[in-house]
């Protein structure tokens, strides 16, 4: 294989992995945009969603019905979180809310393992994680079917969310709430219902992320760690931008893989853990709020 082919393969693999990171980061962005809360529990929600889906399927329910049921469970979870955790803590400091989502992480992780057990399961999406023969035969580059499917799904999800935000009444209300809570309340937008909806949608995004990551790595506890991979994506893209998340995901995925492949062996490998974060710092030094983040205006 020529070195150009090798590079292309690494690059494509990186870009596709980056989209998987964006999927997870999307949940964070949605919640931060609407309620200014950094939802630490997003990783646990990904785990819980995937586990619930697989658990329901194992009970004998057909796939599509199980999917609908799981969506229902995640929406209910989102609304429950809004009612029992967020509403009592309205107007508290950002860091208190962060801590509350941390408590939530423990609750969701424990609940998932209590209800569904700790066995490792597999999820079958009907798409095998093997290279696409057409591309492999013609260019010699291996691209995974599942990765491409995930990219398409992520793209569709982002497009749907974009349409939702810009063309529906609910979407407009969400944008208003994200802009200014007090002003939204004053024009009659039901704040609490909007928050419930946002957490429900974030749960849905978590479910999609959980399904795709679960198909890759199995549905088990390690899924909560995908959230760690999403953090650099969030910084580079900005905490409040949906398109930013996609762009940042592509950047993080590609650079991480290229660095690990070319630079890694020279320093003993394993640089994937810290490289995206160092990259994020470099980006932040130029643009302290991320590429697409809202500029924080501080008044004295």
């Amino acid at each position, binding site marked *: 294989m020529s070195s150009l082919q090798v590079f292309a393969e690494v690059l494509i693999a990186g870009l596709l992995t980056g989209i998987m990171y964006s999927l997870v980061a999307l949940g964070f962005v949605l919640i931060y945009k609407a309620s200014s809360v*950094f939802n630490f529990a997003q990783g646990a929600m990904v785990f819980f969603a995937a586990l619930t889906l697989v658990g329901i399927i194992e009970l004998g329910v057909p796939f599509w019905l199980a999917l609908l049921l799981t969506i229902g469970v995640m929406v209910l979870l989102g609304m429950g979180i809004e009612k*029992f*955790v967020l509403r*009592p*803590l309205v107007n*508290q*400091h*950002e*860091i*208190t809310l*962060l*801590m*509350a989502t*941390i*408590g*939530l*992480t*423990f*609750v*969701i*992780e*424990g*609940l998932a*393992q*209590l209800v569904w*057990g*700790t066995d490792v399961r597999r999820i079958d999406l009907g798409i095998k994680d093997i290279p696409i023969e057409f591309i492999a035969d013609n260019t010699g580059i291996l691209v995974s079917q599942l990765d491409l499917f995930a990219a398409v799904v992520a793209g569709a999800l982002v497009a749907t969310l974009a349409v939702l935000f810009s063309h529906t009444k609910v979407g407009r209300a969400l944008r208003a709430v994200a802009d200014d809570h007090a002003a939204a309340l004053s024009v009659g937008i039901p704040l609490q219902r909007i928050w419930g909806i946002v957490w429900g949608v974030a749960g849905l995004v978590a479910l999609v992320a959980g399904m795709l990551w679960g198909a890759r790595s199995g549905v088990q506890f390690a899924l909560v760690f995908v959230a*760690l991979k999403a*953090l*650099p994506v*969030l*910084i580079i893209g900005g*905490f409040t931008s949906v398109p930013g998340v996609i762009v940042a995901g592509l950047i993080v995925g590609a650079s991480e893989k290229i660095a690990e492949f070319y630079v890694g062996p020279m*320093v*003993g490998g*394993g*640089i994937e*853990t*810290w490289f995206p*974060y*160092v990259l*994020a*710092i470099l980006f*932040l*030094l130029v643009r*302290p*709020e*991320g590429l697409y983040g809202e500029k*924080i205006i*501080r008044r*004295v």
Partner: protein
Amino acid sequence: MFYREAGKFRTSYAQDAQIFPLGLDKVMVGALLVFAFLIVPNIASQYWLIALLIPWLIFSLVALGQNILTGYAGQLSLGSAGFMAVGAFACYNFLLRVDGMPFLAAVALSGVCAAAVGIVFGLPSLRIRGLYLAVATLASQFFIVWVLDKFGWFKNYDPSGVITAQPIVILGYLFDSAAEKYVLVAAIVGVLALAAKNMVRSNIGRSWMAVRDMDVAAEVIGFRPMPVKLLAFAISSFYCGVAGALFAFAYLGTVEPSAFNIDMSFRILFMIIIGGVASILGSFLGAAFILLLPIFLSVLFHTVFGNAVDASMLSATELIVFGALIIFFLIVEPHGLARLWQVTKEKLRLWPFPH
């Protein structure tokens, strides 16, 4: 009635600047110190000393460091476990490579090493703030652990990668029993906590709080942000480094980079949030909550349910109850446990009057 400020006249600046101005306060703190240093080592069981008190003190020290950085200086940081790792390995290497280095000097020097590393990784704070800074400090966490893991020099080229800490010898006296280690750790933590309390009440502390509250205004009135922020990073990392050295030497007995992982960094942040940001007492309370409450729950569940309920379900339930308690305490007192104590003291001052 007993705990009152009325009738206490101060005639010198020194009296005015006391940490514990009220008589009853002084008596209580004195009794606490006597209890902690003289009574506890003699009556506490091995279990209490090794498994509960020593880790609690060590994590209180880290939480102090984290509180200085995040609570007082307002720099949200998630790299404390990384600085602990620096301290632990620095102490190991100082004792290994410098003949006749006294233990306390090694601990202090390892704190200084951690401080130096802290300054380097604190540089982004001059440009980045808030949640973005928190995630950026994760870079320091991962990078430090990677460096300590990869380069065998730090571990003296040990094939297994887990090195055993040397025994603690101070002035020829060997500290190897649990009670002795406890007294040593308690002494170091006590001294450093006192230093921290005085630091935050001084000009340094005020400069931190000014930068935290409104850094543009702080700059306007003359606090230059770079020295203030970097000093916060340095001192906070010093505390974390010393705590890391104690963690390796007086508690675990082994030094391994992956013991100082991101989970620990997160837990340290949790400790100060639940304990109370910008509060010295809060560091101790938060460390107790995050560290000891899961153990307490585990003991409670095992005693009550024993072998009747499947152990996996018990473990999962412990997690759920722990998370629920965190949320519950936050709803009841969003400013942390230290605030609960503060409210109690204020009520005591007025007692028996309601207001």
